[in-house]
């Protein structure tokens, strides 16, 4: 799965989140999951066999989009987390 932003929509301010050390463009008001998918970063976490897993329900139920917030090591649902400038996450969990 990959994502493309619909052209011509009014968006918030351009910001940057950091995923696995790389800058990923986002707009204020988007979720972290939106920014990741728009950048073709669809692997959010891994199962016990280290196979990549990705966003499924996009509404906070399935927990497939858990990523690790670098600031405190906590696991957060990317689909429920608003993108914030400088927010840094990892997908190696």
């Amino acid at each position, binding site marked *: 799965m990959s994502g493309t932003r619909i052209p011509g929509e009014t968006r918030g301010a351009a910001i940057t989140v950091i995923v696995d050390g790389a800058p990923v463009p986002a707009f204020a008001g988007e979720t972290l999951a939106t920014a990741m998918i728009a950048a073709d970063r669809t692997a959010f976490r891994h199962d*016990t066999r280290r196979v990549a897993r990705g966003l499924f329900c996009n509404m906070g139920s399935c*927990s497939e989009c*858990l990523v690790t917030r670098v600031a405190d090591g*906590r*696991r*957060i*649902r990317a689909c429920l987390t608003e993108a914030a400038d400088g927010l840094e996450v990892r997908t190696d969990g």
Partner: protein
Amino acid sequence: MKRVDVAIVGGGLVGCATAWRLSTAGASVELIEAADINAGASGQNAGSLHFQIERRFLENGDALAEQASSIVALSRIAVEDWRGLETALNADLHVSMAGGLMVAETADHVALLERKATREQREGLKVRTIDGDAARAIAPYLSASVLAANHSADEGHADPRTVTPALAAAARAAGATIRTHSAVHAIGRRAGGGFTIAGNGFSLHADQVLIAAGAWTAALCTLANLHMPLYPVALLMNATERTAPMVPHLVQHVGRRLSLKQTHAGNLLIGGGWPSRLAQLPGGGFDLSRRATMIPDSLSGNLRAAIDVVPAISRLNLIRSWTGVTAISADQLPIVGQVPRMPGLWIAAGGSAFTLGPTFARLVASAMAGGPSEALDIVSPARFEHLNGFMG
């Protein structure tokens, strides 16, 4: 008409394990399951191997606690059954028996722990009461609020999602027939002995019948014109996300509803007997065909208890909560054995049947073949024979 030595109604842990034991011993067995193997409480429970006396037996006064303590005799046998199960099945069931701690957070509860340990030691179970610091030395993840714990070196957990399917596979390999999506509609006694079991598209003769259908057991017993005092109860289970190994033990609470453990994969499973709400039938009665609904206060209360005892859980995400239905008997003890007024009809239901299930199955299979059954006397349906004075 097809004839078998034993028909088993219910494809849960006890039914599949009994089918395995009987088939291995050379009996012809047909197991009949209304839904899928492991679809009920056997697969919904949180997989505790609890050998200490359960908290639910302690909260209704000393008399009931004393009666329930007799279950410890079976728990002692179950320790050995679980130790041998993976080898016997040649399957990885994620059995972990790294010990269990039942904790207390108040002086009253510490006294309850001490009385409980006295009962358990009297019954020959290896349990000792240790203070909070000693508990934290064994289990550094425990909160400072833990004042004492009863430690049992044998307790632990296993994976409910793999145990019963492995038993069903072993039963099939030993020659048992397993029929799923087949509800039983009739259980009749045959003149001259034995039973006829029938449902949609099948009927068979069986010399003996075992009803091991969890919360559905009472309704199935009515097909044999018997009362069985088993009542459905709906419970709540929860799972956190996976995390690094931190809780090797089974953790329970003597004064609050809590059981928790960490699975092989790393998730923490949190339960302990918090109620869910059974679906009801319009004319009265409970509708076991519909899933029970979660009670929000149960969810928050269960997680609060877990975090109070293991504070690190507060950093974890809850990823799943689910409801499951089991059954309790009129006196809280399981009902396992032959119905005296109906020779050849056997029952195994009434809770505690993940921990005790392999033992129930082995003992029932042996007794069905004419072996000794004294170990099952304390859970025999004979104690409810007075309810069937006008039945049978």
